[in-house]
């Protein structure tokens, strides 16, 4: 058991914050990067950064907002910097092997794969919208972009996902 760091500041207990928010931080990174090890590494870095900034965080809500913002922006940075996955437009992605239908246990995985092919910003917007249940104004604040951009990118991403999924159904029918 590692020695606990004396990390309480502004009434926030570091270990408690890690336990409370690790699923959120890890999931944003994992859904965005689709690489478990990389997502865990990024999540750890985010919490180390949180530890260094603990003194300036005023409340649990502030810490949650800070974590979300830092995780989203660092994940975007990782992809831009490393370019581990070449960017492929959604239209260029091959159709899922198995066609999907509502209630299909494969649908979740198919959707996650399709989300992973979205352009970086649109992908993060979709994750913050449907994983974190943020509204467009909140997403705009987290990513530092206009609300209008969030709304248009979200609509475009949903339209592309619908097209891909319906194409899968069509192929199955045929």
């Amino acid at each position: 058991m590692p020695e606990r760091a004396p990390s309480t500041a502004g009434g926030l207990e570091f270990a408690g914050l890690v336990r409370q928010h690790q699923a959120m931080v890890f999931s944003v990174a994992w859904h965005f990067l689709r690489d478990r090890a990389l997502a865990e590494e990024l999540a750890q870095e985010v919490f180390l950064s949180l530890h260094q900034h603990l003194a300036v965080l005023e409340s649990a809500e502030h810490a949650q907002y800070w974590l979300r913002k830092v995780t989203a922006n660092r994940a975007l940075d990782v992809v831009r910097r490393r370019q581990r996955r070449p960017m492929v437009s959604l239209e260029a992605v091959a159709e899922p092997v198995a066609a999907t239908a509502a209630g299909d246990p494969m649908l979740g995985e198919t959707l996650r794969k399709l989300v992973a092919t979205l352009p970086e910003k649109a992908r993060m917007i979709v994750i913050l919208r449907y994983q974190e249940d943020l509204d467009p104004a909140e997403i705009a604040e987290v990513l530092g972009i206009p609300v209008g951009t969030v709304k248009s990118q979200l609509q475009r991403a949903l339209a592309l996902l619908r097209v891909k999924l319906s194409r899968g159904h069509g192929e199955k029918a045929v």
Partner: protein
Amino acid sequence: MNLEDELRSALERREPSPDFTNRVLARVSGAPARRAARPWVRWVAALAASVLLAVGAVEYRRYQGERARSQVLLAVRIAGGKLRKAQKKVQTLHMVRRSVT
């Protein structure tokens, strides 16, 4: 099928590895804490910088004074040499006039 509901379900939060919290806490304990410089270190650094500046200023003024003094001495030596030469010429002229008269 409602795509938005399916996305909510597909993008549900997931937990990281069971030892994630402990690994983060271990890294935090191992990481050198970023401490602010102690107040006395700042005062000592400021004092040392002030002393260095003062000593530098005094030394510079002394150097400038010595340089000016040596320049004045050189000028006096040059002027003295010229005066001696002029004096010799005047004496020679006097001697020539006397011998003629």
